[in-house]
């Protein structure tokens, strides 16, 4: 088997439908939908589309968990003993088990919320962060950016479960949140250890993380405003090793993405 498996070769059964992230962003139906008043996008029970949004987000979580599992698995395989320390691979193997459980949990939660595998499309941009050939970059992109996003998503869903008095959702999201904090912590620890004597490499890795984070803000998907479906989980991010400074800068980046998305949607609406 070759090292480095490209995104296009991820194996899926017949239920899955792949879509490109740019197709979703530039979907011509988007501006029309944006003019419909469905309320702010933040997950809350009094929003008109709350049920639909929670189902679609749950499906997104499910495919995200598959890709996180695949990414951690590939990190066990892609690097030789001299490229990635043994202990790092052990951490990645542990993460495989955790992500495998997260897939199981999110499949069952999908049933619970009333969606099914394949009801929504899958875009594989999360796995793309796990294709970096440098283990430090990969760990930073996956375990700090991607897993950091998972913290925000699970905390948002946990709060939604609490607010909608759904004890199953709240219970499961809380457990997954605990695992994701552990995964981000692994990323923070390995970044520090592997770049201890190489500040330049550390800066490159952090730059890669910022790029990935920017993609994950997904035109206003994450942030600290009412318009953001997924809210930044500062408290859990701190537990996982992010500094206040890092959280502030991510928040700023997210606000920029939200503003760009707003302008883009106004522009597109004006053209139609």
């Amino acid at each position, binding site marked *: 088997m070759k090292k480095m498996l490209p995104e296009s070769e*991820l194996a899926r059964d017949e239920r899955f439908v792949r879509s490109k992230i740019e197709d979703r962003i530039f979907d011509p139906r988007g501006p029309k939908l944006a003019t419909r008043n469905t309320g702010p996008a933040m997950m809350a029970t009094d929003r008109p589309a709350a049920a639909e949004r929670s189902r679609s987000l749950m499906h997104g979580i499910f495919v995200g968990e598959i890709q996180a599992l695949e990414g951690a*698995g590939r990190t066990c395989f892609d690097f030789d003993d001299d490229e990635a320390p043994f202990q790092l691979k052990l951490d990645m193997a542990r993460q495989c088990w955790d992500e495998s459980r997260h897939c199981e949990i999110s499949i069952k939660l999908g049933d619970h919320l009333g969606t099914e595998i394949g009801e929504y499309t899958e875009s594989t941009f999360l796995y793309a962060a796990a294709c970096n050939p440098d283990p430090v970059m990969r760990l930073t992109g996956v375990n700090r950016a991607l897993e950091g996003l998972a913290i925000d998503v699970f905390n948002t869903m946990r709060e939604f479960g609490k607010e909608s008095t759904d004890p199953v959702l709240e219970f499961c999201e809380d457990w997954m949140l605990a695992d994701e904090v552990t995964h981000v912590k692994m990323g923070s620890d390995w970044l520090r250890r592997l770049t201890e004597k190489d500040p330049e490499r550390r800066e490159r890795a952090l730059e890669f993380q910022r790029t990935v984070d920017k993609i994950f803000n997904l035109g206003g998907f994450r942030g600290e405003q009412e318009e953001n479906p997924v809210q930044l989980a500062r408290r859990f991010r701190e537990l996982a090793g992010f500094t206040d400074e890092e959280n502030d800068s991510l928040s700023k980046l997210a606000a920029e993405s939200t503003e760009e998305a707003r302008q883009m949607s106004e522009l597109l609406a004006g053209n139609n």
Partner: protein
Amino acid sequence: MSDAFKARAPFAPWDRRELPGLFSVEDTARRVGNYKWTEMRLFEVLGGWVATVPELDVKLVLGRHTYHHAWHAELWHKRLPELREMNQERMTVPANDAFVAFMDSVRDPEAPELTIEKLVGVYRVLIPRLIAVYTYHLNGTSTITDAPTIRSLKFALQDEFDDWRDGEMLLQSLIDTPEKVDRAARRQQELEKLYIRSGGIAGPGSLGETAEEQGAA
């Protein structure tokens, strides 16, 4: 004098552990190093395969098993310095080149249509042999002097049995035509032939049948 001070036998009547064992400290370190190398190559490939199998149930089981074998590799990694092997990397080696060829072949399939070939290699060839080699070690080592190895072997064996059953059940559900029976059998034969050329996970004598012993028989 109170009863608490009455002399008692240091070994209770039901404790039948004995001093003699088949393996010296050096033999044990060598075997443990071979086990660690094998478990490492195994957990790496299970992790790598996750992205290449379309069957969702198989994908999730492989994700879980990846960790089991990584944990075994870690148990052996920690045992090495206790066996006077302070340089763990020096001992983390395959038994011989033929065993490397066997493991390379186990790890070779990649295409999404090859799930049966992937699973046969691990669950019908490699894991049954890990169970055999670990059991031989467990039954042959000194039950007093080598108790720490015994404890790790028992933990690892418990996982190997459970994982073997998971993998075998997946295979039985995937092999549903006579053609697939042939495919699985061919793959198993191919790998078993490579395996015997290596003498086993710990080389010749993996199950105690050293060349001299075979000659004397």
